[in-house]
């Protein structure tokens, strides 16, 4: 089962390697991991997308909680939540492809943020499925590079992850 785990961690050097080291040492999967400081610069928020049985997810959250620098851990996928991921796709855009890519981008509510006479950079935000669908809708031969941020997540409504 896929889970999205959010955590608050002290914004100190080495904190990220404690988390990633834990996952590799114990053989847990990381599908994606994003991290950046919060509004309180002394703390970072991390979103980890992982897969595993209920027992493994339970161990992952317990092991994360055990790390001294981890302040709080929540499996946000246990209840209603939002996920967003940012993707930048550089595509070859020449001839009739230019119009086609523009149309596809509009359908996905993506934005073209860089234009040259031979390429576009398309910016797209959404959940993983939407981003995957956009990639699927573009001729693979036209894709020059893709960059994905990994998933950011937040609980809906009253569910707040804060100290």
């Amino acid at each position, binding site marked *: 089962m896929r889970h999205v785990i959010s955590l608050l961690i*002290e914004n100190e050097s080495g904190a990220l390697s404690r988390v990633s080291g834990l996952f590799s040492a114990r053989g847990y999967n990381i599908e994606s991991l994003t991290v950046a400081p919060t509004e309180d610069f002394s703390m970072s928020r991390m979103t980890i997308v992982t897969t595993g049985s209920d027992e493994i997810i339970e*161990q992952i959250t317990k092991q994360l909680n055990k790390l001294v620098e981890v302040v709080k851990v929540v499996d946000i996928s246990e209840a209603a939540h939002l996920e967003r991921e940012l993707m930048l796709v550089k595509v070859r855009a020449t001839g009739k492809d230019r119009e086609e890519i523009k149309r596809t981008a509009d359908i996905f509510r993506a934005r073209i943020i860089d234009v040259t006479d031979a390429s576009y950079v398309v910016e797209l935000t959404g959940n993983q499925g939407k981003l995957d669908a956009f990639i699927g809708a573009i001729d693979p031969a036209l894709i020059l590079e893709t960059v994905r941020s990994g998933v950011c997540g937040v609980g809906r409504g009253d569910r707040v992850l804060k100290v």
Partner: protein
Amino acid sequence: MVLSGAEIVIRCLQEEKVEYVFGYPGGAVLFLYDALFQQDKVRHVLVRHEQAAVHAADGFARSTEKVGVAMVTSGPGATNAVTGIATAYCDSIPMVIISGQVPVAAIGQDAFQEVDTVGITRPCVKHNFLVRDVRDIAATMKKAFHLARTGRPGPVLVDIPKDVSMQRCEYEYPKEVSMRSYNPVTKGHSGQIKKAVQLLLEAKRPMIYTGGGVVLSNAAEQLTKLTRLLGYPITNTLMGLGGYPSTDRQFLGMPGMHGTFEANMAMHYSDVLLAVGARFDDRVIGNPAHFAEEPRKIIHVDIDPSSISKRVRVDTPIVGDVKEVLDEMIRQIESGEARPNPEALASWWKQIEQWRERKCMVYKNSDEIIKPQFVIQKLWEVTGGDAIITSDVGQHQMWAAQYYGFDKPRRWLNSGGLGTMGVGMPYAMGAKLANPDMQVACVTGEASIQMNIQELSTCKQFRLPIKICNLNNRYLGMVRQWQELFHGGRYSESYMDSLPDFAKLAEAYGHVGIRVDRPGDVEGALREAFTTHKDELVFLDFQIDQTENVYPMVQGGKGLTEMILSAEDL
């Protein structure tokens, strides 16, 4: 008051009432050693290899309730310490390790004697710090000691660059530690404890299974009280020996791979299992699938939530300090009406006595050749069963655990989790310094002892009259045993040729060496070591039966009820 970083470190050690630092100097810690030199509160024990420094500090901690402290230099000093740190980590031993580092500006430049100590030790410490600013030293040291001794204890490393130890700043030792990210639970949930007590009292085939957590939490008294109050059978794991008096009738011996038949059967066929400060290790429950075949309710008390439901599904988890939880259990039982069901308990004990009748610990003694079990039994007699026994790792470790009856906690020091050969002598050094009035013996083998044999020199310098009982069978005994049983008797690299004359070697270091070849001489040699040579280190080199194996045995991957009781079962 303005002090140098090095002086601050030593001041912090004084504040923490550290009596001994075990260590080895080097370039990156010269200022620290200079500060050590200029005071006399914290004493330094100069080992001969950094691994032994950490083990000795670990042994010091295991034999007391105190935090062990080791100090090593950067680079090889730190890498040599890693085995010691990992050993302490696996057994949750409170320790602070101070390592020197190259100057801040040199970090990352592949400087002389530079390694990423914080990176290398990260997976085997409870936490570690690199102190980049002299103004952070005092607060970091305070945190290090706090982290090491609270919650589930463990080693904490503080890496200090040379220039940071040289710089000066205003010193004040913080009175308190406050970390928003670290607040271990100590008080168990009272509702959960209530449920557990009810389960326990309703049990028909109860069993108490306890581990190192009881020793670490200093809860032997509470455990003994609870066990006697209930009248239930109890087993202590390798790490938990001494948590309950082994000479008591309710004690069934050690469980697991080399545990007793009765302990393993009672573990397996219990209907309610109370696990306290133990973690259902693979050496304890064997195959978890086989263990799960028998339905039973499990109550698990542990300070570390991640130990609960890790290898077996637990019905009633209680997160908290073992001592506090046991106290609350006793309180609830004593203040309630309910008592264990006497008929059910009587028939359960009848069953257990039948298992006990198998006398799984009986071995064939000999007049011709020294049996290792016999040496341990004699060691118990000669020391009145009240010595601190350290061991290395292998067959001798199991024999010591099986045949030296531990009645008190912190008397049995061994590397249970990591299984590190070479810990025995340094553990004995640390234990002897911490308990100068107690008898301290190291049970070892000719292979393990050679992994830190250089410490005979440290023992001479610091006059540590430990007694080394070398069960010498000229083989890596446990390896040989597995090769005999599971690898068709192909003894690949398990025979050791060209061994030194250990008695002479001990003498060369200035100690007493005694070689013992005959069973009739075992007791006399031991008495000589503990009386005539009471104040000297004595190296007893017992030439034991080369073919002796450790039984009973649950093979790897097998279940607890599938035991080999002796060679005749093969």
